[in-house]
């Protein structure tokens, strides 16, 4: 059970994980803190393991990575255990390890902080408490590596299906129908494509990188693809790396050909917009409209209408009549929710601390949101009241999430443009950047790091060695989509481009990569680190 993991690839790493339950021979480790790994061992038939190591024998490197779960993709991390451990190390029990084959189900508990693995005979193999969170991230990874389905009785319990199981075959069929398993092929195909047509393929490739991370391990590349990859790796190996100060300079990097110019188009005009609608007011060619918006934005006077489509309030395929009908329904729905908090009595409020806390935080934040803009300036401004009421109604719409700081920033430009409470609410709810535990943000920051390592390895390495590999300094950029960094007009232009969903999802991550690449020399020359951004 205790093999050395030298040749194993780490798919997931998380520190601050407490071992809560395990077989009797691991007694000494119970309630101690360590690091949890998901590993894959090519030498043992690509077998995967969950492995937990107590802190005192964890290798003291990569401190940075351990703070956040890092999904390691392209490079295999070469960690050797020898040398770092006392001589008798290999004779002692050093980790709790269980093969994926043993796992028949796993269950999240304790407000998503605890994860237990079961062997199907109602025995718990092991159980862990995630002191730094990220349990859900691991569950996501497990779900992508194992064929699972949530239990009908318990939504936190995931059943693992094995290959001899009839249910699995059914599941397989449904996967095949969804065509998900082709992702690994797609990635390698794209990789080849990138070499041949770098710019055309890159956008598409980026959109798939994270999928690749999760799924590719199931599917080794074919020979051609492997050759391509090897070639590329050899190129890297041939580069001369020398050290300057505490970062490495890679002198020769395979270069992409010159970038093609894509001039911005003029903003979408009212004529173009109307021209794309048929007599019923239905948009005929949605893709071409979105492309126009992506390439040029929207004329300011037309935004009021177009944003309602971009923000999924109006369905793109709807007719004018359908939209009128929708407005009535949505208006009723909104005011119903609004009444729910408006009608709350003082006693109810006094007995409802969660609600009270949210209400007071909204009040505080509304009072300090974009007050420099005329629209929100001055005391007793009715627009501030609307801002407040929409956020309060959002609490009733999604009480589990409630109010998260940053929401008022995202709502402000929408309300400023639409000047209508109901419409602004329905447009606002599309913003999905907020989670109770910031899991979505962590994932975005992780993905940003993955992209950066792919696009510009030197800057990624530089950040890693300057305590910035967690990409925290981009947190505000991502949470409110550059709202605090750009002018009002630029924010609007940028957001409408983002909302087209072109050229791929998570385009904003590419924007971050582009900024970091542009500022690369400034960052490196000034020796900027986490504490200097």
């Amino acid at each position, binding site marked *: 059970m205790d093999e050395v993991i030298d040749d194993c690839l780490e798919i997931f790493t998380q520190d601050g994980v407490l071992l809560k339950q395990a077989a009797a021979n691991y007694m000494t480790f119970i309630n101690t803190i360590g690091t949890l790994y998901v590993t894959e061992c090519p030498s043992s038939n690509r077998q995967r393991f969950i492995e937990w190591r107590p802190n005192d024998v964890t290798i003291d490197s990569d401190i940075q990575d351990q*703070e956040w779960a890092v999904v390691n993709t392209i490079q295999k991390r070469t960690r050797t255990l020898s040398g770092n451990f006392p001589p008798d190390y290999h004779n002692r029990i050093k980790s709790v390890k269980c093969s994926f084959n043993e796992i028949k189900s796993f269950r999240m508990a304790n407000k998503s902080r605890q994860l237990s693995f079961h062997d199907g005979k109602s025995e718990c193999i092991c159980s862990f408490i995630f002191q*730094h*969170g990220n349990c859900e991230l691991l569950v996501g990874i497990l779900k992508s590596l194992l064929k699972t389905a949530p239990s009908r009785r318990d939504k936190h319990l995931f059943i693992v299906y094995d290959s001899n199981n009839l249910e699995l075959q059914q599941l397989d069929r449904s996967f095949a129908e969804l065509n998900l398993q082709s992702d690994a092929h797609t990635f390698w195909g794209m990789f080849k494509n990138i070499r041949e047509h770098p710019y055309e393929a890159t956008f598409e490739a980026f959109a798939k990188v994270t999928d690749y991370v999760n799924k590719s391990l199931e599917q080794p590349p074919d020979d051609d693809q492997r050759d391509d990859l090897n070639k590329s790796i050899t190129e890297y190996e041939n580069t001369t790396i020398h050290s300057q100060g505490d970062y490495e300079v890679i002198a020769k990097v395979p270069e992409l050909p010159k970038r093609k110019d894509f001039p911005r188009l003029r903003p979408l005009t009212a004529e173009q917009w109307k021209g794309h609608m048929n007599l019923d007011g239905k948009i005929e060619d949605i893709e071409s409209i979105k492309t126009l918006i992506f390439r040029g934005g929207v004329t300011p006077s037309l935004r009021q209408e177009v944003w309602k489509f971009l923000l999924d309030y109006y369905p793109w395929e709807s007719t004018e009549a359908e939209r009128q009908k929708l407005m009535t329904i949505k208006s009723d729905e909104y005011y119903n929710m609004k009444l729910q908090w408006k009608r709350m009595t003082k006693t109810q409020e006094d007995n409802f601390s969660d609600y009270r*806390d949210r209400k007071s*935080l909204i009040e*505080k*934040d509304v009072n*300090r*949101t*974009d*007050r*420099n803009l005329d629209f929100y300036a001055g005391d007793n401004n009715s627009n501030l009241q609307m801002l407040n009421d929409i956020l309060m109604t959002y609490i009733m719409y999604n009480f589990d999430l409630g109010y*998260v*700081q*940053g929401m*008022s*920033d995202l709502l402000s430009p929408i309300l400023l443009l639409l000047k209508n409470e109901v419409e602004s609410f329905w447009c606002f709810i599309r913003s999905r950047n907020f989670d*109770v*535990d*910031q899991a979505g943000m962590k994932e975005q920051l992780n993905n940003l790091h993955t992209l950066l390592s792919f696009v510009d390895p030197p800057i990624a390495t530089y950040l890693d060695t300057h305590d910035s590999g*967690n990409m*925290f300094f981009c*947190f*505000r950029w991502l*949470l*409110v989509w550059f709202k*605090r960094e750009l002018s009002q007009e630029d924010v609007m232009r940028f957001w409408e481009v983002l909302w087209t969903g072109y050229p791929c999802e998570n385009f904003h991550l590419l924007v971050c990569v582009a900024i970091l690449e542009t500022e690369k020399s400034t960052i490196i020359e000034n020796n900027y680190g*986490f*504490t200097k951004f």
Partner: protein
Amino acid sequence: MSSSRKKVLLKVIILGESSVGKTSLMNQYVNRKFSNQYKATIGADFLTKEVTVDDRTVTMQIWDTAGQERFQSLGVAFYRGADCCVLVFDVTAPNTFKSLDSWRDEFLIQASPREPENFPFVLLGNKVDLEPRAISSKRAQQWCQSKNNIPYFETSAKEGLNVEQAFLAIAKNALAQQNSTFDLYNEFPDQIKLTNTQKPSSNGDSCAC
């Protein structure tokens, strides 16, 4: 001796409920400015200031954090290596005082300093320019005493009242903390620089080209 020592960077973290004035205090101290239009802090921000403490010039790096509790899960990276933690509450808002314990505990858990019981905290009761007052000085001082005598200052970021004094105390505590941490190890002498630091003579410096 002091001048030849390695440049000292003190890392200070400001924590407390939303809207107690963390950003305002930091800006009043570093820039001597107040605005009532500060926006809610997202993630974290920091400013630096050079200060002289006991004849030593040190750089204070002050980290201003988001007040909403759920952003605390990001704390680990921000709190790491802190030399002093400043807790802030609003003297007119009782709930901001009540939550001090949880801010302190959370900091100790996430930053996990070497000696939690001796880690320096400083408490600031802000907005003393406002009425009505909900938390008396006495009550705040009692809390401080119960936590191993945390220094307490009553401030107004708006009027700049006591802000300078408070941050000087913060700097002193941070410096003392850093020195005590260094004393745990054998302090190495300064590195010997092999480069020629002598300025070239003006003749050699100028060149006709």
